[in-house]
């Protein structure tokens, strides 16, 4: 029997593994993102028309939304891990968890909306 009976476990294998797996996927997705946005196009940045044209490629909107979800997952689990290094109290961590999940949800919904808008603008 363990001498130390608490505190409650606040970061287990699955959370860590999700962060690692998301990070691995980001390497590919971010690689594509950086190459398309900075290496391929003359001038190093896509213009408005070029962005709209890019989002007309069939799998790109889905890929970008997936990228958005993955990158916020990785980033915010990482931020939470940094905060856990500070040994926050149960109350502070609860507030942090709610804040991180809320902010991530808002950005993901907003980003998905933006992808849909850009896709529809490109079809006009």
């Amino acid at each position, binding site marked *: 029997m363990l001498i130390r009976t608490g*505190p409650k476990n606040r*970061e*287990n*294998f*699955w959370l860590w*593994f999700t962060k690692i797996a998301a990070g691995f996927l980001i390497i590919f997705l971010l690689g594509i993102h950086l190459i398309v946005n900075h290496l391929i196009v003359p001038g190093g940045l896509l213009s408005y028309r070029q962005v709209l044209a890019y989002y007309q490629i069939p799998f790109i909107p889905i890929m970008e939304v997936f990228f958005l979800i993955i990158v916020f997952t990785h980033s915010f689990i990482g931020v939470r891990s940094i905060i856990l290094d*500070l040994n926050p109290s149960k109350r502070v961590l609860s507030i942090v968890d709610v804040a991180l999940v809320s902010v991530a949800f808002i950005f993901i919904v907003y980003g998905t909306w933006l992808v849909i808008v850009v896709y529809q603008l490109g079809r006009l």
Partner: protein
Amino acid sequence: MSEPKWLVDFQILRQHPGDKPHFKIYPLEVDPEENVLDAIERIWAKKDRTLTFRHACHHSTCGVCGMRVNGVEKLTCITAIKSVTKNGGIVRVEPLRNFTVLSDLVVDMGPFFRHMGETRFNSVAPVGYASLPFEPDPTNSIPLERLVDCIECGLCISACPAATTNAEYSGPAALAAIQLMLTQNFSPDLMALADHDNGAWRCHSAFECSEVCPSNVDPAWRIMNLRRRVVAHRFKSLFKFPKQEKQHA
């Protein structure tokens, strides 16, 4: 013929309860082959009897003389003065980091020993488990036991960035001890201790613990191996099926 003497300034961090920490300089004539602990003892004996520090075996077995020398964690009983300074130079001596300082160079090892105690750490193990797997086997596969390498000096805790901000973190030594115990016998309690936010997931792969370990524990390697064991355990438990009863004719 003896080595010519060096004149070295020892800057020692002094702090007694109620005092503000401050460095005090002790110029000392030393034999460069001497160890830092020898100099500290001579400073205590001949210059300042109020200086507090720990010392015991003088041959890197007990682990009590761990301090920071010029910012780096060392066992002062085996740290030659010539390896950390030159003639006319400075040796800066501070207590270990990430431990509460009780007085001068003496720190509170209590929490550390509690973390080690939770692992039910066994100081003796079969040679095959006590040694790192990539080391040559000196026993020619004869089943022998030996004292494990960890001398519980705490240098790894001092060097660990995660231990700087979190007193609940088990720390490299305890995690290495869990790995050592788990390689010998699986225990769900020890696995739970490892698969915990204050266990293996608090390590961020700085590898400083292995850089400063004076005793060949290689805690970083053991922590990464522990993570591998946790990963394997977690995946295996996903595919565990309940035992089926045998049908008898």
